[in-house]
């Protein structure tokens, strides 16, 4: 007495599994077989087949009757191949009967079907030592890239000083507008808030010593020498460094950078120099703007503590000298070089694909901020040693 099991669910094709005995079985497939309806039927037939193959030994013979199939698509053919492969693997035989002639050529396309079942390859695991070594090598490569890039950039910057007519001033203006004028609102907002917060926090502490009148000079000095350039540089890193990296990164992905190289043009001269020049122009100007807004915010805040504008102004003049302002602006210029150059470098190091552009933009912001802190540290050391 054969055991008959039907596999179906609403609208799906029906597969009737007839286990004649331990060595012979038959499947009758009926209905319309397509990729949406096949899921359950496929799984159930394969489960029954596996159970049948496992429960007995010997020569398994499966007859697959497809004479009542209404229609079949590519997924249906894959299903037939899946059942056949399971038979072959267990050493059994598979007989497909009654399949409409028009599906035969499609089935033949996949001969031999063993190609469709590759042996899974396990990726060799890397040992700790190897992965540490590779990470170190990446670090060294990165440093090399940075040094080479710095050299090329310095060379091309000097070249553009000697040949100012050949600099791409159009690109320079575009980059300066994007990085500079378009950044004014955010720089203004952030530096205003920083000015308020800085003097407010200082005032709370100073009030205990009755020294509220010293907050103005202190805040002004801090803003001009440190906070102004730093805030502006970090904003520029977030806005423009990322933008440069994404822009040049997309050009790299689209082989536009390759097109420049194969046309005998230096991508650094062509793409990086205008952007770095824009950074050099924009950073001190933005910093001055940030300084003014911050100091104004500080003045307004101190008004709330009963310090009139004129007192604040006189206190500031006694504390902040011209050399403090210049020191801040020189630092800002250096930040401008670093931020725009790092953005361009990360853009040029972009790999392939859309994800690589995102990675480059992220790396540009992170590296820019790290470099800003490093430059700031070196500058503080020089300032301390020279008294400038």
């Amino acid at each position: 007495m054969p055991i008959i099991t039907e596999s179906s669910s609403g609208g799906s094709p029906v597969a009737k599994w007839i286990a004649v005995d331990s060595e012979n079985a038959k499947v009758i497939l009926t209905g319309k077989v397509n990729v949406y309806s096949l899921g359950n039927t496929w799984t159930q037939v394969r489960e029954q087949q596996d159970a049948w193959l496992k429960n007995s030994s010997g020569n398994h013979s499966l007859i697959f009757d497809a004479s009542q199939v209404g229609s079949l698509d590519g997924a249906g053919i894959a299903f037939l191949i899946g059942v056949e492969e399971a038979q072959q693997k267990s050493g059994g035989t598979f007989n497909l009967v009654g399949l409409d002639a028009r599906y035969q050529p499609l089935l033949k396309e996949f001969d031999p079907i063993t190609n469709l079942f590759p042996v899974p390859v396990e990726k060799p695991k890397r040992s700790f030592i190897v992965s540490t070594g590779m990470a170190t090598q990446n670090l060294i490569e990165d440093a090399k890239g940075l040094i080479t890039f710095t050299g090329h950039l310095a060379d091309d910057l000097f070249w553009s000083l000697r040949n100012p007519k050949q600099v791409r001033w159009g690109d320079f203006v575009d980059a300066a507008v994007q990085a500079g004028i378009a950044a004014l609102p955010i720089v203004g907002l952030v530096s205003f808030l920083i000015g308020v917060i800085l003097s407010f926090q200082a005032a709370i502490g100073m009030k205990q010593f009755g020294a509220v009148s010293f907050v103005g000079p202190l805040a002004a000095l801090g803003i001009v020498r440190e906070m102004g350039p730093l805030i502006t540089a970090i904003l520029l890193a977030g806005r423009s460094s990322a933008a440069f990296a994404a822009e040049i990164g997309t050009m790299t992905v689209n082989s536009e950078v390759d097109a420049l190289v194969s046309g005998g043009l230096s991508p650094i001269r062509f793409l990086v120099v205008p952007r770095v020049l824009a950074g050099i122009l924009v950073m001190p100007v933005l910093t001055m703007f940030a300084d003014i807004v911050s100091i104004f915010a500080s003045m307004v805040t101190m008004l709330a503590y009963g310090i009139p504008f004129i007192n604040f102004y006189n206190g500031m003049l006694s504390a902040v000298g011209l050399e403090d302002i210049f020191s801040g602006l020189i630092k800002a210029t250096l930040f401008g070089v670093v931020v725009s150059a790092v953005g361009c470098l990360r853009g040029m190091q972009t790999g392939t694909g859309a994800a690589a552009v995102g990675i480059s933009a992220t790396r540009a912001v992170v590296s820019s901020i790290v470099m800003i802190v490093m430059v700031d540290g070196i500058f503080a050391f020089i300032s301390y040693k020279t008294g400038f």
Partner: protein
Amino acid sequence: MDTPNNYAIEVKDLTVGYGSTVLMKNLNFTVNNGEIFVILGGSGCGKSSLLKNLFGLYQPLGGDVLIEGQNITTAQGAERQKIMTSFGVMYQQGALFGSMNLLDNVTLFMQEYTELTESQMNLLARCKLDLVGLLPYESYMPSEISGGMQKRAAIARAMALDPKILFLDEPSAGLDPITSADLDSTIQDLSKNLGITFVIVSHELASIYAIADKVIMLDKGAKGIIAEGDPKVLRDTSKDPRVHQFFNRIMSKDAA
């Protein structure tokens, strides 16, 4: 008069363009079920734009496109999604997902729309990759294979859900002659045996003669269809100089 259901695609008074620029005016044509339908025309005449209007990516400036009797230009929500899953699209540049390998590119839509298990989807995806000759490259990333291979992988992805209609934008451009011939024979097999309708934008004359059941030829100046029918018949009998020139590869300066 046929009922709309007899056609895979029916185009009624379709106007194609962007904003105020009109590329094609009042197009009317039908694509039969299981037909290999080729759209021809010189560069820049709006073939790709027409294709994007046919499968509903762009909203036409006017007129209607009926896919299997359903109007894709007015369909919304679930109805629109249902129409969208009834066809597959291969874009000119391949447009593979760069963060996934080829096998995952093909299985992505299966994961979203079917109840197949992972191993079933993988087998199905391998069948599709085998059809376009890319089986050994299943674990490659799109950026690691050549442009021609990316196109073939994109065809495999378009076929993932066994759609009834496949839109192919220049499938054989950039392929070597052997691969191109293989692809033609695969397209014919699928059309003949599974009844899949193909709408293909192509310039490859050899391929067009080999596979096309029907072509329409678009012209920039006329902003419409200037020839329609069997390509071989058009080549041999058309009196229109533009059509004659195209099918017989005559340089523009010699034609005048």
